[in-house]
């Protein structure tokens, strides 16, 4: 069976659609099809890919208007296939987008455990019950593929908005019982470019390929921020 695949291309100057015909077998994913095109039809087609099992987060593209991981999307479940780079990221070439800003934002929210008595030389075993683990575990599954950012209406118009993925990371560290750095993170997150910009379009949760539910994390983070601000006010 053959399937026609429409790919949105960009060569640095202009952007255009290109069509390819790809023979399809059962079990073939969109990534397999793209690789087939690259290896047999058009070697200039560029896209990111790596693990092909949905944990590395490289291959988020817009398939039929929805951001998805190319490696996880079975081609036979789609009727026509139309592939574009994800929104809200600057396109570098074809399906490759610029993630530098995204990772820079990730950096400024201090996404690591902040502990007062942290010893590099003499680490100690810390206690964390399965219940405490479960509280944040889901939010630690984010693969930073950028799908949620690409559908967030605020991310599309304000480029320094932290975005769902990054704020989920903040929430993950805040709910970790080993962490002691809440104040530092509130400073960053409870700001104009943080939680107050979210208006709960909740599309991020709809498209997340790992079911991390960023919308929920952001709402919870906002409640925490409100309580924090009120407490600070009365101090």
């Amino acid at each position, binding site marked *: 069976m053959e399937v026609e695949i429409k790919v949105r291309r960009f060569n640095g100057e202009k952007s255009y659609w290109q069509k390819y015909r790809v023979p399809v077998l059962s079990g073939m994913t969109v990534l397999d099809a793209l690789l087939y095109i690259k290896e047999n039809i058009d070697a200039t087609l560029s896209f990111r890919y790596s693990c092909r099992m949905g944990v590395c987060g490289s291959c988020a593209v817009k398939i039929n208007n929805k951001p998805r991981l190319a490696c996880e999307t079975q081609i036979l479940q789609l009727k026509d296939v139309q592939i574009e780079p994800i929104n809200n990221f600057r396109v570098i070439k074809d399906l490759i987008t610029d993630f530098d800003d995204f990772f820079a934002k990730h950096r400024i929210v201090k996404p690591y455990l902040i502990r007062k008595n942290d010893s590099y030389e003499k680490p100690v075993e810390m206690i964390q019950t399965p219940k405490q683990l479960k509280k944040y575990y889901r939010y630690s599954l984010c693969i930073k593929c950028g799908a949620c950012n690409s559908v967030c*209406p605020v991310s599309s118009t304000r480029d320094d908005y932290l975005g769902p993925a990054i704020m989920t990371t903040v929430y993950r560290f805040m709910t970790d019982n080993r962490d002691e750095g809440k104040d530092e993170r509130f400073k960053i997150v409870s700001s104009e470019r943080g939680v107050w910009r979210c208006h709960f379009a*909740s599309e991020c949760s709809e498209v997340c390929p790992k079911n991390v539910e960023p919308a929920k994390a952001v709402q919870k983070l906002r409640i925490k921020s409100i309580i924090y601000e009120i407490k600070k006010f009365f101090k």
Partner: protein
Amino acid sequence: MLVDWFRIKGRSLHSLAFSFHRLTGIVLMIYLILHLTYLTSLRFGKESYEYLISLTVRPETLPFDLLLLLATVFHGVNGIRLVIHELGFVYEKRNLILYLTFGIVLIVWLYAGYLMFLLIMG
């Protein structure tokens, strides 16, 4: 880009609700300004007020009135939905609540619109 606020192709109903909320918010804000200006006529006496009323409250403007009513009802009901979620409640049931919101909006709008229709058409 601003159009992304109103992008609904390939997206879920949640995005539609967001776009609509934003749109109706802007519409209502403009209406608020108009409304306040309009009421100024009260201060200039009966005639100017009744002239404006006769200009706006008539069968020809009914569709606009109905649209405005829809905007108000949607913004209100959806706003309450957002409040519930933003306080961190019932996140898991968000789809159900969204459908419920749309349902309530439709019912309230149709009913209120019917009353309005009766009022204006006499």
